[in-house]
């Protein structure tokens, strides 16, 4: 190339001393031509980038020297939409935050507004139990999706099909209880949309052993698989100090040894009545994150098996008419119920002015809702604290030094979800 000659002519390249090593051979001065870093696009539309992240990697050969992670390709303006919607209309938007465990977002949001209204401790017991049960169900499907997709990206397509087979059973259960497979919108402020029936509880307990069997199949396929372990052990290590400084919680945070689980440290709903363990990793590499998620699936099943038999009877919605819609039969028969219905639907539940930061343990960690209420039926600001946002931020520090092939398992195990990270 012509330009590189001029480049070399006025600039003598630095030389490198080469020692030949055999008898009476003097050392050579070899021109040291530095390698130019190659910018590489792992763009928005990439199978391993969940379709919504663009990584501009500066690459030397196979080794990454710098990684600039660009998100925002799925910024759907949750906050702007929530400012224009009433408190109840925001539930469908919360489904689409972490869309592999929508139920946990619903629970987080419902509890935040209930705390603002001050009715969170008058909730019927049954509602708390139902929320714990369907919440853990969503956590299982969250981890199944994450493990299945990450295994598929590493080539283990069978594990993907196993995980999705188990997830289909869970989707059928969710569809049974609330009508939708994925975007459930099952929670309401002050309760749940529909009651949980006895048969549903029995069906749920019948499915769990089959899911356990699928989990053992997956573990048999992956846990001691040479290829899987080589690609996961010691790759993408996040230290405990980084987890603290970045605010990484959830399975990724616990894999670094930071034993922080909102269900244990600040028990909410009825989590303090069930005994379950919180798996904590030690190294903070990809395999720890995999192992923590596998163990969490088994623990969630343990919680469900304790909760379903001991669920108390009772109302599934809060009795206060300013919060709950009157039942359909009354709405058509009594004028008071119709007016209450109309007012609740048209200008929403009037939340007294104030601010609240309420946090729950969602699929990827501590999901916080910071809501500023101004007394009307619509929130002034409804901020979501996304658990996978700091985990994606730390990648800029974790990726340099790894190979290009290591980006895929690391990003898969961080479990960044576009809807939650970009909101």
């Amino acid at each position: 190339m012509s330009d590189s000659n001029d480049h070399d002519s006025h600039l003598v390249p630095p030389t490198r001393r080469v020692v030949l090593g055999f008898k009476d051979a003097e050392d050579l001065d070899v021109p040291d031509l530095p390698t130019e870093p190659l910018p590489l696009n792992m763009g928005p539309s990439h199978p391993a980038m969940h379709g919504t992240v663009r990584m501009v990697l500066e690459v030397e050969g196979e080794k990454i020297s710098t990684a600039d992670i660009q998100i925002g390709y799925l910024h759907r303006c949750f906050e702007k939409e929530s400012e224009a919607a009433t408190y109840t209309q925001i539930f469908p938007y919360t489904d689409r935050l972490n869309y592999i465990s929508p139920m946990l977002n619903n629970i987080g949001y419902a509890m935040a507004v209930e705390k603002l209204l001050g009715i969170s401790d008058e909730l019927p017991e049954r509602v708390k139990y139902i929320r714990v049960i369907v919440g853990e169900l969503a956590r299982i499907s969250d981890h199944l999706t994450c493990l299945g997709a990450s295994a598929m990206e590493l080539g283990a397509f069978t594990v993907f099909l196993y995980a999705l087979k188990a997830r289909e059973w869970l989707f059928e259960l969710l569809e049974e209880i609330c009508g939708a497979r994925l975007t459930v919108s099952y929670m309401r402020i002050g309760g749940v949309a529909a009651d949980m029936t006895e048969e549903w509880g029995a069906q749920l307990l019948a499915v769990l052993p089959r899911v356990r069997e699928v989990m053992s199949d997956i573990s048999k396929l992956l846990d001691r698989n040479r290829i899987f372990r080589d690609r996961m052990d010691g790759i993408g290590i996040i230290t405990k100090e980084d987890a603290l400084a970045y605010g990484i919680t959830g399975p990724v945070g616990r894999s670094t040894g930071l034993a922080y689980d909102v269900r244990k440290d600040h028990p909410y709903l009825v989590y303090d009545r069930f005994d379950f363990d919180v798996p904590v990793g030690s190294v903070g590499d990809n395999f720890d994150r995999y192992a923590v998620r596998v163990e969490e699936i088994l623990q969630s099943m343990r919680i469900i098996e304790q909760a379903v038999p001991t669920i108390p009877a009772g109302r599934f919605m809060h009795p206060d008419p300013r919060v709950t819609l009157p039942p359909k039969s009354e709405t058509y028969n009594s004028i008071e119920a119709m007016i209450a219905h109309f007012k609740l639907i048209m200008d929403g539940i009037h939340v007294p002015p104030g601010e609240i930061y309420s946090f729950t343990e969602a699929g990827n960690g501590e999901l916080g809702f910071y809501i500023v209420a101004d007394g009307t039926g619509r929130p002034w600001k409804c901020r979501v604290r996304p658990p996978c946002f700091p985990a994606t931020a730390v990648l800029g520090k974790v990726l340099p030094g790894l190979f290009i092939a290591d980006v895929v398992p690391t990003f898969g195990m961080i479990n960044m979800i576009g809807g939650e990270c970009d909101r």
Partner: protein
Amino acid sequence: MGFEFHTTSLQAAVNWARKWSLFQYPFVTACCGMEFMSVAASKYDIARFGAEFPRFSPRQADLLIIVGTITERQGPALRRIYDQMCEPKWVVAFGVCASTGGFYQNYGTMPGADQVVPVDVYIPGCPPRPEQVLDGLMLLQDRIQKGEGHSQITIAAERGYDVPIAAIRPKELKGP
């Protein structure tokens, strides 16, 4: 461009072959992706229609499935990938966000992928049930068989054939 020939029986045979061997480029962005996994997995198995094999390069794909919300920032990437696909190509808008922007009518979301690429089949639903997706795929297969795909019409018009459905889109065909 090569020698001229026109035989409906060959075209019908070619369309039949294209219909049953769609290679999809899954342009997955959002929640519909989870339902897309269910459609691709063993229960609702899209492989029965020959459309299961995802090709993550636009060069080897002839069906662009837009799965999930297309934001304004994603627009140029979507347009570029559509342009890089070879004819004949079809586009399916999977889910209401890809069709019209769904309930995200705001500054960040594009009101439907057809603002950027011509879409052949719109599948409603948020996310659509797997059965809806298979129904949408069958709808697309009928259009391919009848040669009504956007790119099929463009090719037919350029080759001077009698375009089968001039009536459906007179406005477009009069354009340059």
